[in-house]
């Protein structure tokens, strides 16, 4: 007490700093985005013209319709694929289960636009499959991979793992006794599934569906590469923002505002529903996988193998392509390492940037995760509540919108960050923060407060207790979460593609550029490096945690 009381309280100071940081990098950019959407491009006068323009021209508002159509279809499809997969994998003994689960996670972790681009390689105008169908089978017209169908294919294969993960997590938490209780009361078979199992996993499925919805709505790379004439909102915002002809930042801002409003509404609706009916369960006796045989076994396995096979094809295509002999856009016969040579001589800085930015972001994410989780769980007050709410914001902000907001906010004095590595790192940290925080808080809730009280009663100050006990106990969980964050961070495209400059581009931006330039060999080589990094990181994750599951 005495002699030390003039020192400012550690947690109060930290809360203050965090409020400032979030005000600067989150509230201020979002506010300026919101405000600039109400301004005329030339005169900067207040106006509703931007919104009027959007809703009066079919060219623009049809993109909103397209986005909704794709997103809704993708969400429904992933639910109908993901839930049966989760149920089969949990309820039955499946051959090669471990390998299948790893493949599912790899296809979930790799960026969607790589899927888009390798489906173009396969089924595009000059694609292997297209040529095969045309030449060998002699069919004139093949179904086009471009447009709505292609986007749907790529998104569904990339996003069903979210539903799969959420559903299997929920199924594992259902105690066998619940089903047995239903049976003892005379309720069996499908009726049991409908009245017990489905209601119990519904809140979790809804949370997963929201994630799918947000991802599909916000993704920029896929519709850009495979959509061709089929415009979605992120594509429109991007081209309006960076477009050389007639682009207007204010108009882009107003479209971004519309998108954020939509995602916010979805988010609130889902929260509202889940809060009303969510259950905490932990199964003492989880479901045990049963042996299946005969025709049932065949169909179950066929379903799993086909879906997982399709979703892993893009990775295999990319890896295969990267070793082809190539001369820019034209693939030559035979194999070579020419693509790898080219990227190391021309795009070496993109590779270095990816790892550097990734590491720095993860460092920031781990520290922020530890501190903010502690503040919002253990030191609940008005200001930590504000921080907690603010950190959920990025959840509803599509990556391209975040890129635009940061660029609009820090393009001018007093704080010019555009074009720096810092702005990319900030965007990566902000994007990943809600996920990190959620998992860090979950870890903290597992730690009984009396552990901290024990330390305090033994004479350690609360701050010392945090660093010596709480943080140490949280760290393994936070670090394993950080590995997953690392994977998403290095694969990030939609905000970096807006924020990068020649000196700060990352691998995923470079892949995107190479694909646009039709330099497929180098794109494939870069994408292979990304995939390899992802796989290695996953292996590290499994080794370190001893877990077989990944939570997103």
């Amino acid at each position, binding site marked *: 007490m005495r002699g030390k009381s003039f020192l400012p309280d550690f947690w109060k100071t930290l809360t203050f700093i965090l409020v400032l940081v979030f005000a600067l990098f989150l509230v201020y950019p979002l506010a300026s985005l919101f405000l600039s959407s109400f301004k005329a491009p030339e005169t900067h006068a207040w106006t509703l013209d931007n919104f009027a323009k959007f809703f009066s021209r079919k060219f623009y508002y049809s993109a909103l319709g397209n986005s909704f159509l794709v997103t809704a279809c993708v969400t429904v499809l992933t639910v109908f694929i993901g839930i049966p997969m989760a149920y089969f994998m949990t309820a039955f003994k499946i051959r090669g289960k471990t390998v299948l689960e790893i493949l599912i996670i790899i296809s979930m972790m790799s960026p969607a636009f790589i899927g888009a681009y390798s489906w173009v390689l396969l089924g595009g105008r000059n694609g292997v499959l297209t040529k095969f169908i045309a030449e060998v089978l002699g069919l004139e017209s093949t179904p086009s991979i471009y447009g709505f169908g292609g986007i749907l294919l790529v998104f569904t294969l990339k996003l069903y793992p979210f539903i799969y993960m959420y559903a299997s997590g929920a199924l594992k938490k259902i105690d066998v006794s619940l089903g047995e209780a239903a049976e003892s009361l005379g309720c069996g078979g499908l009726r049991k599934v409908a009245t017990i199992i489905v209601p119990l996993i519904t809140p979790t499925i809804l949370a997963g569906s929201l994630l799918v919805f947000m991802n599909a709505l916000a993704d920029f790379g896929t519709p850009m590469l495979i959509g061709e004439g089929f415009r979605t909102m992120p594509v429109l915002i991007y081209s309006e923002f960076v477009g050389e002809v007639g682009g207007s930042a204010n108009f882009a801002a107003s479209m971004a505002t519309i998108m954020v409003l939509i995602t916010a509404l979805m988010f609130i609706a889902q929260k509202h529903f889940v809060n009303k009916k969510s259950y905490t369960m932990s199964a003492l006796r989880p479901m045990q996988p049963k042996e299946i045989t005969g025709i049932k076994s065949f169909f179950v396995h066929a379903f799993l193998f086909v879906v997982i096979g399709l979703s892993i094809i893009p990775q295999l295509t990319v890896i295969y392509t990267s070793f082809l002999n190539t001369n820019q856009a034209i693939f030559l016969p035979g194999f070579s390492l020419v693509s790898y040579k080219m990227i190391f001589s021309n795009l070496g800085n993109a590779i270095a940037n990816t790892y550097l930015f990734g590491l720095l972001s993860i460092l920031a994410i781990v520290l922020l995760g530890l501190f903010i989780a502690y503040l919002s769980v253990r030191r609940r007050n008005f200001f930590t509540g504000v921080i907690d709410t603010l950190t959920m914001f990025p959840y509803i902000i599509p990556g391209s919108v975040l890129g635009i907001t940061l660029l609009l906010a820090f393009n001018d004095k007093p704080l010019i960050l555009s074009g720096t590595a810092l702005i990319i790192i900030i965007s990566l940290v902000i994007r990943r923060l809600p996920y990190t925080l959620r998992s860090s808080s979950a870890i903290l809730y597992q730690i009984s407060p009396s552990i901290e009280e024990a330390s305090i009663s033994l*004479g350690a100050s609360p701050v010392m207790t945090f660093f010596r006990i709480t943080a140490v106990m949280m760290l393994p969980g936070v670090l394993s979460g950080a590995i997953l964050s690392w994977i998403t961070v290095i694969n990030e495209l939609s905000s970096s593609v807006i924020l990068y400059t020649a000196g700060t581009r990352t691998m995923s931006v470079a892949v995107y550029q190479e694909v646009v330039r039709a330099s497929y060999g180098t794109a494939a080589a870069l994408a292979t490096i990304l995939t390899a990094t992802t796989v290695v990181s996953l292996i590290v994750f499994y080794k370190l945690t001893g877990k077989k599951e990944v939570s997103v």
Partner: protein
Amino acid sequence: MRAARVFILEVVQVSVAIHVDNVVKRYGSATIIPGLSLDIKNGEFFTLLGPSGCGKTTLLRMIAGFNSIEDGTISFDGSPINNIPANRRNIGMVFQNYAIFPHLTVRQNVEYGLKLRKLSKEEIRKKVDDILRLVRIEEYANRLPERLSGGQQQRVALARAIVIHPSVLLMDEPLSNLDAKLRVEMRDVIRSVQRQVGITTVYVTHDQEEALVVSDRIAVMKGGVIQQVGKPQSIYARPANGFVSTFIGHSNLFHARARGGQSIEFEGGFRLEAPELGEVSAGTALVAAVRPEEFSQGAEGLTAKITGATFLGKYVTYALSFPEALLVSGQPSIEYSQDLGSAARLFEVGEEISLRPNPAKINIFTPDMEQSLMRGVQKYAR
């Protein structure tokens, strides 16, 4: 000579008396403790006993410094501690879930508080060795806590709390997570360790049997208010009110009336001389409390019908039914314990017997049962 003096000093300084003066605890608009006072002597084993939600843990955490004190003072040896943060109060606390640091070994857990006190390495080593031997877990010193049983974890928690020579030892339902047999074993460990170290201990429990066994004194609490403070035997023998008489042990409650002097008459006409009854004017309504083992069967007494029997080896507990007018309403059961060491025969269910309360042991309360009318009852025994 000098070493001996230091040792004595340590023993004298270590433990403190706790003075709780009119403390108030509020959560928002709800008042959990509406002004409570208590004196706990140096070196005493003091138990806060009560049903869940009675405020006993709240009070304990106020002494520990984990709960704020809205009004009133808590002092250690006369100096107020209200504004001293928990980590500077020099308390040892044993938690309900043990709160063992899972990432540290047993030795590291016990060392934790000593390291913060900047003792030399050899000193720490010696103190930890001594305490691990005292609680008999020296062979597990280098294990991680997850590989210990509940009882062993409890011993680590106890060792960790007392090794720092705290001013007070606070224990929050430390045995409630153990199985019945281990609970009996551990309460003896706690009691004997406390005796050897001689440290002021505040112990919270809802288990009345545990409280009776371990405590020097017990404070019975209900609704944030102390009902009675006293030695285990006197609380059991002369409860200060109806709540204490039914919460600690079992009491059968009967309607009765004073006849003047020490004589009372039960509803229905049975009369009894209660030599310990205080001044009560004739005709006053009363409630008489009789414990199951304080009945004896004889020719004259209250007539009861046996409705059930539970054989417990040393004795049989019979469930009884009496005429409704005789009984205070709302009692979960009316019981008579027959001591098989001296019983002539067992009774059958359905049989009618007459039971006579032991006049020396009977307790008599006001009709609202808020106050005992017995001589020698102490609401607050020091």
